[in-house]
């Protein structure tokens, strides 16, 4: 049973307006939610629809509706993610600043007979592995990383979704990339991807 407050304002008078908007956005919203909260995606989208419906009347510019609804979804996902992710230790955050996955792969040389070492490293990761590495990142870094690099949003759009200054968003994106590189390496070691790849 769905319960929602009555929306108010001019948009509410356009009967069916919210439904038409949201229905067209469902595939995109679901994909974004999958990237952020995995199996909770459908619930996250449903929450966003309810919140969006309640405040649709306050939306003045219909052209901004897709970004507005995305922002509602992203912030709902962030609430869900905060409890899930493994928090990095402060020392890890200091270390990742200097970490280079490119150099680590070259230095460790996990596939001695390979002439495309770095590509071979990435090819050890299946979709589930990538999802697991991303899911392990703290939400403040995962959200910019997923939205910019997996979903193709512009950095300014993501700053709008998160309601933070662009500089703050870029700093999180930078830290998120470094942490992602570091966790890719750690994951490959932990799950034996390097040994398996070396056998091929």
């Amino acid at each position, binding site marked *: 049973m769905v319960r929602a407050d009555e929306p108010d304002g001019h948009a509410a008078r356009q009967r069916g307006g*919210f439904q038409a908007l949201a229905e067209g956005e*469902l595939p995109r919203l679901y994909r974004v939610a*999958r990237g952020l909260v995995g199996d909770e995606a*459908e619930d996250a989208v*449903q929450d966003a*629809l309810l919140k969006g419906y309640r405040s649709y009347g306050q939306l003045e510019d219909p052209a901004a509706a897709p970004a507005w609804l995305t922002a509602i979804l992203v912030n709902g996902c962030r609430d869900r993610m905060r409890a899930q992710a493994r928090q990095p230790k402060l020392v890890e955050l200091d270390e990742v600043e200097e970490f280079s996955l490119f150099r680590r792969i070259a230095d460790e040389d996990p596939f001695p007979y390979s002439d495309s070492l*770095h590509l071979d490293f990435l090819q050890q990761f299946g979709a589930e592995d*990538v999802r697991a590495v991303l899911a392990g990142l703290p939400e403040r870094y995962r959200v910019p990383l997923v939205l910019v690099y997996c979903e193709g949003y512009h*950095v300014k759009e993501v700053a709008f979704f998160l309601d933070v200054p662009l500089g703050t968003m870029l700093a999180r994106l930078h830290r998120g990339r470094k942490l992602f590189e570091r966790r890719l390496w750690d994951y490959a070691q932990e799950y034996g991807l390097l040994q398996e790849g070396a056998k091929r």
Partner: protein
Amino acid sequence: MITCAEAVRQLWDYLDGIVDETQREAIEEHLGFCRRCCGEVEFAEELRRFLATHPEADLPDDARARLVATLEQLEKQS
């Protein structure tokens, strides 16, 4: 002239096109003579492709049906 560490720190921003003109020129000048950092750039591009080509699953039909039913119920209440 920037160092390798400085160049590497800005590589992704460079690839994302969000460095200013002065930074872009400094990075490109560095890449002009540093083969190792060229390798870093190529790998950063691979990593970007790697993330972009791991898309999430499409909206399943049953989930779509449930979400559309939610929308219809909301509209009926209005």
